[in-house]
Each structure stands twice: as C-alpha cells, then as structure tokens.
C-alpha cells in the first residue's frame, strides 16, 4: 500500500460497486457515454439520458423536459448536456458560475461539449470555444486559435485542441509540459486526448504520438497498436484505443484494473474517464472495465478505506502484540520474585507496581508522545507507543503471578526441588512458573485486546501513530467527523473484536490441549 496515495477525485465515497452499473435500458441501446469520477451518464439511440453510479443529490436533480439529448459530458461532479435542438443544460455542482451557461454559447451552434474539474467547455461550428466555471484550477485560453478549433479535450490542468489544419495546440498561456507537441504529428492530427500527465495525438494514418511525462509507463505502447488506431480515449492515467479491426487495447495506470480491457469485437466507440472505461459495439451493447467502487468507501483523502483498514490492522496488531510481550515479561519476572521471596522484596516490588498502576495511563501516554513524539520518526513513534503501553501495563500481570506464586511455593514439589539442590531462581522460573503460567497467559490475551484499543484511542486522539500511516484509531479519527451515523459503528465494530475473538479461541484451544 502506498501510504502517501491521495486522490482528490475519490473523496468520501460511500461503499458501493455501482460506478459502472449501466442501466438495463441503456445496456443494449447506447449511443454515447461519459463518466464522472464516481458515476456515469449515457444516451440511448432515442435521445434519452441515463445516470448511474454514486450520485450526489445535485447530480440526481436532472432538469425536466430537456427533449432529445444529443451529447452528454460529465465532469468531476457536474453534468452538461446538449440537446438535439441545440440547447445546453447543466446541473450538479453549481458554484463558481458553473451553472450559468453563457448566453453567447447558448445562441451558438454547438458541436462539442466537455466538462472537467468544475469547468465546462463548449465548441461551436465556427471553431470558437466557450469556457465557464472555475478557471483557477484549469487555465484555458484559446488565444490566437479561437475560431480555428475543430476538436478539444480537457484534463485536470489544461485543455488541448486540434485546429482545422491538423495542428495540435495547448490552449493555455502558461508554460506546461503539454506545450511541447511532437513535430512529426503536426498537420496530420485528427484527435487529441490527455491523461493527467500525458497527452496523446492521433494522426490520420492511425499512429499515436505521446508527450508530457510518463508516470505509469504510458509511453510503452502495446504491440499492434501503432498504425491501426481508429479512436483514442484517456482516463486519469491510462489510455484506451479502438483499433481498426474493432478490438480494444488499454495500457498505463492500472491500480483499479482500468487497463485490463476485456476481449471484445465489433466495437464502434470507446470512452475512458477517471478510472472507468466504456465500449459500445455496433449493436449498441455496452462493455465496461475499471473501477466499480469501494467495499468500504473512501476517506477524506480519497483513499480506499478497506485497504487501509487491513494495513492499519497490521500496525495495530503489532503494537498490541509487542506491548503485551513487554508487559508479560516484566510482569512475570517481577511477580515471580515478589511472590516467591515475599517479605521485603515483595513489599518493595508491590509498592512499585502500585505506583506504576496508579499512573493515569492516557494522560501520561499523551504527554510522553507529545514531548518525545515529535522529535523521532514514524517507526520510532510506533515503537515508543509499544514500549509505553508495555511498561505501564505490567502491574496487573505481576499481581496475578505473585498471587499464584504465593500458593505454589508452599507445594511440596518446591521443597522437593530444593532438596535435590536446584537453585532458587531456577525453581521460580523453571519449576513453579510452568504451573502458574496458564493464568498469566489468559490474562495476557485479554490485555492484548486492551493494548490494541488503547493504541486506537491514542491514535484517535492524535497522539499515537500519525498520518499517513493507517491504524484503526486513525481510521476512526478520520471518519467520525464525516458521518456520525451507524456506519462508523459497523465499520469499527467489525474489525476490532475480530482479533480478540480469535485470541479467545486460541486461548480455549490451549486450555483443552
């Protein structure tokens, strides 16, 4: 798991697997499809619009009476449609003027629409583009090419366009990695698409040329693609191409299986958005691959909660186990000496145990991790929590072992062991301890659970393991402010008791044996 992974487009998604659940009515009758971050929109051959996936309330509020839809475009969380009578409608995210379609755009003869991160762009038949919405994230300016644009594409940072004379241009007045368009493609371009970091131009002879940067080895184009490309589409880190023989090839980023194109034939159109892919064949049948959704949703940074819960369990369980081992060793040694020798040694050791036992645990752990915690790296911090937990929780075990020791040392086999000349330390730990260890072990398995919970509460309060390392406490901390419903209860309630239950089963099996 990449601890530093974040994805602004996948934040706070509810658990579901519906991102690509195309409605039955559209499934065999599709004309055009576009996908947003967590949802999809499609038009059937009769001009009806369908939405699916994880939709916000604003996205669900589709305007009525739009008539027949000709084109649909979906952005991060808004939708833009173009009807057959050349009117545009938009809904979903509505701030930053995203809901205000410019009047000159409404009056123009629009041929292409697209929606990006809080921005909408439309192109008219005169080659003019219209931009509205938030232009702070994406800076688009057609500059000298206004009136000469044939086709355009949006990505998370900029917009690229193909002009009427086959030139590829970057519609920005800033210096971006996308400005360096490959020379050999200029003049022959018929389409341009772009992921977050890589742009691709398709030329009239079916070749593609890539530029930008290649974080997911996008430049390793699979064999049999060059010269055969009919159409190209791009998600956030992967490319999908439709070849002349009607098959589809995907490559690039594959963290959600978005580059695993299934075997298909007779495909007419491919669409890639974010992590989803759609392909429509000549009968209008829809094929999908890529990200379906998340078992337990995502957190406020767009990270997969289920994966983090599993990884977090590893840290939480390690902390529990190590701290229990520390407190077990300390408790058994101290309790053993104290119970066997009695008298002054017992007196001193037990007063010590009472002092340690009397320390208020949580405040102390907080102060300690506050004082030392910021000066040491992450692993040291985790280690420190283990030690704090272990060093502070031995008195219970020690008292238990001491009590058992007190009765066991009066047994005759102890005198017998003494009578054959065995030294006292050996008697305590080799002869008596095996007789009393079961009680201590049972207690240790219980305090294993307690240690885990204490780690969770420490991390929950922000004094334990820090971001971005996942632990269960962190998980609860990250979640509780977003939903105070039963969901957190269920999500935390499931994993936390599980190790304790398995612990208990182990304990029982040991007792039977």
């Amino acid at each position, binding site marked *: 798991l990449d601890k530093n992974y974040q994805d602004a487009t996948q934040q706070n998604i509810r658990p579901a697997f519906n991102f690509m659940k195309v409605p039955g009515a559209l499934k065999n009758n599709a004309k055009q499809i576009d996908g947003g971050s967590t949802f999809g929109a499609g038009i059937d051959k009769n001009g009806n619009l369908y939405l699916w996936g994880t939709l916000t309330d604003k996205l669900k509020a589709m305007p009525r009476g739009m008539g027949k839809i000709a084109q649909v475009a979906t952005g991060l969380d808004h939708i833009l449609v173009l009807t057959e009578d050349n009117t545009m409608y938009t809904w979903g995210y509505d701030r930053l003027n995203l809901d205000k379609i410019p009047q000159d755009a409404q009056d123009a003869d629009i041929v292409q629409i697209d929606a990006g991160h809080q921005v909408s762009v439309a192109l008219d038949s005169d080659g003019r583009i219209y931009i509205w919405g938030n232009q702070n994230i994406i800076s688009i300016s057609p500059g000298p090419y206004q009136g000469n644009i044939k086709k355009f594409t949006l990505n998370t940072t900029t917009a690229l366009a193909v002009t009427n004379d086959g030139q590829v241009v970057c519609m920005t007045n800033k210096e971006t990695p996308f400005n360096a368009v490959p020379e050999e493609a200029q003049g022959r371009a018929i389409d341009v698409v772009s992921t977050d970091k890589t742009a691709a131009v398709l030329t009239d002879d079916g070749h593609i040329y890539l530029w930008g940067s290649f974080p997911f080895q996008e430049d390793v184009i699979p064999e049999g693609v060059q010269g055969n490309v009919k159409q190209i589409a791009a998600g956030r880190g992967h490319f999908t191409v439709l070849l002349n023989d009607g098959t589809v090839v995907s490559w690039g980023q594959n963290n959600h299986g978005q580059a695993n194109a299934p075997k298909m034939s007779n495909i007419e159109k491919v669409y890639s958005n974010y992590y989803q892919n759609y392909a429509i064949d000549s009968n209008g049948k829809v094929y999908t691959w890529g990200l379906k959704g998340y078992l337990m949703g995502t957190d406020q940074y767009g990270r997969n909660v289920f994966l983090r819960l599993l990884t977090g369990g590893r840290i939480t369980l390690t902390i529990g186990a190590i701290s229990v081992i520390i407190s077990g060793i300390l408790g058994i040694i101290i309790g053993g000496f104290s119970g066997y020798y009695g008298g002054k040694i017992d007196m001193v050791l037990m007063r010590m145990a009472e002092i340690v036992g009397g320390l208020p645990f949580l405040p102390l752990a907080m102060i300690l991790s506050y004082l030392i915690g910021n000066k040491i790296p992450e692993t040291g911090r985790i280690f420190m929590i283990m030690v704090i937990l272990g060093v502070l929780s031995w008195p219970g075990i020690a008292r238990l072992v001491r009590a058992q020791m007190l009765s066991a040392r009066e047994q*005759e*086999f102890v*005198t*017998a062991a003494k*009578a*054959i*000349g065995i030294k006292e330390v050996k008697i305590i730990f080799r002869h008596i301890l*095996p007789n009393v260890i079961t009680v201590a072990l049972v207690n240790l398995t219980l305090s294993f659970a307690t240690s885990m919970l204490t780690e969770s509460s420490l991390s929950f309060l922000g004094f334990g393991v820090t971001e971005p390392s996942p632990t269960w406490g962190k998980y609860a901390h990250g979640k509780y402010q977003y939903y105070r419903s039963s969901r957190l209860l269920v999500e935390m309630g499931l994993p936390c008791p599980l190790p304790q239950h398995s612990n208990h089963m182990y304990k029982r099996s040991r007792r039977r044996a």
Partner: protein
Amino acid sequence: MSILRLLDGNGYIDSGEILFNGQDLTKISINDMYKIRGNEISVIFQEPMTSLNPVFTIERQISETFMVHQNMTKKQAAKEAVKMLADVQIPNPEDVVKQYPPSALRWNASARHDSNGPCMQTKPVDC
C-alpha cells in the same frame, strides 16, 4: 529438612553444630549447600502426588538431579532415569518416563494392585 535448611523462617538453629564429612553444615554458605542437597543428602517425601511437579514428565524430574550434580547431558541423564526406574522394578520404565506424574501414578497403581500402595513412592528415593 532442618539439616538441609529447608524449613521456613520459623525454623532456626538455636545453637550447636551439624557435622557432615568433617564440615559444619550450619556454617557453610548457601551455594555450598546447593552442592550437598540432592548429591550427598536428600529428603524422601512420602506423598508422590504432591512432591512431584505435575507439569514435568517423570524423565525430566529424575534426570534433573543427574544434570545438576553429575554434569550429564540431557540424553545421558534420560538413559540414567530409565535405568533407575528399572532398578526399583517399575514395569515398562521406557513408557513411564514419558508420562506426567498424575497419569504415571494412576497407571502404575492399577498395574501393580498387589503391592503396598502406589509404587511411585519409591521414585524420590532414587538418589
């Protein structure tokens, strides 16, 4: 028990001396006493049910003495333990050494119901 200083705190030596092989046992250090205990002087306990440690096998309890006092390895001591049991005519000594005291006692008591009491009583006598 008192000679070996095995009594609890309430038992003490008021006066006099205990002579053993020319040594005064009241004056030697506890470390020297460890060497005498079990090697030269030992105690025979009457009740095998309590004087044997229930969590160790018979083998371990008998061989421990050899390991402590005669520096035997674990294997040698185990062999010696079987020999000891055979010497006091316990049936199947090889099997008995692998058992834990409670089951060993039960097994032997039923096997030798004609003898006087549980035969394991002999065990602490061995050395």
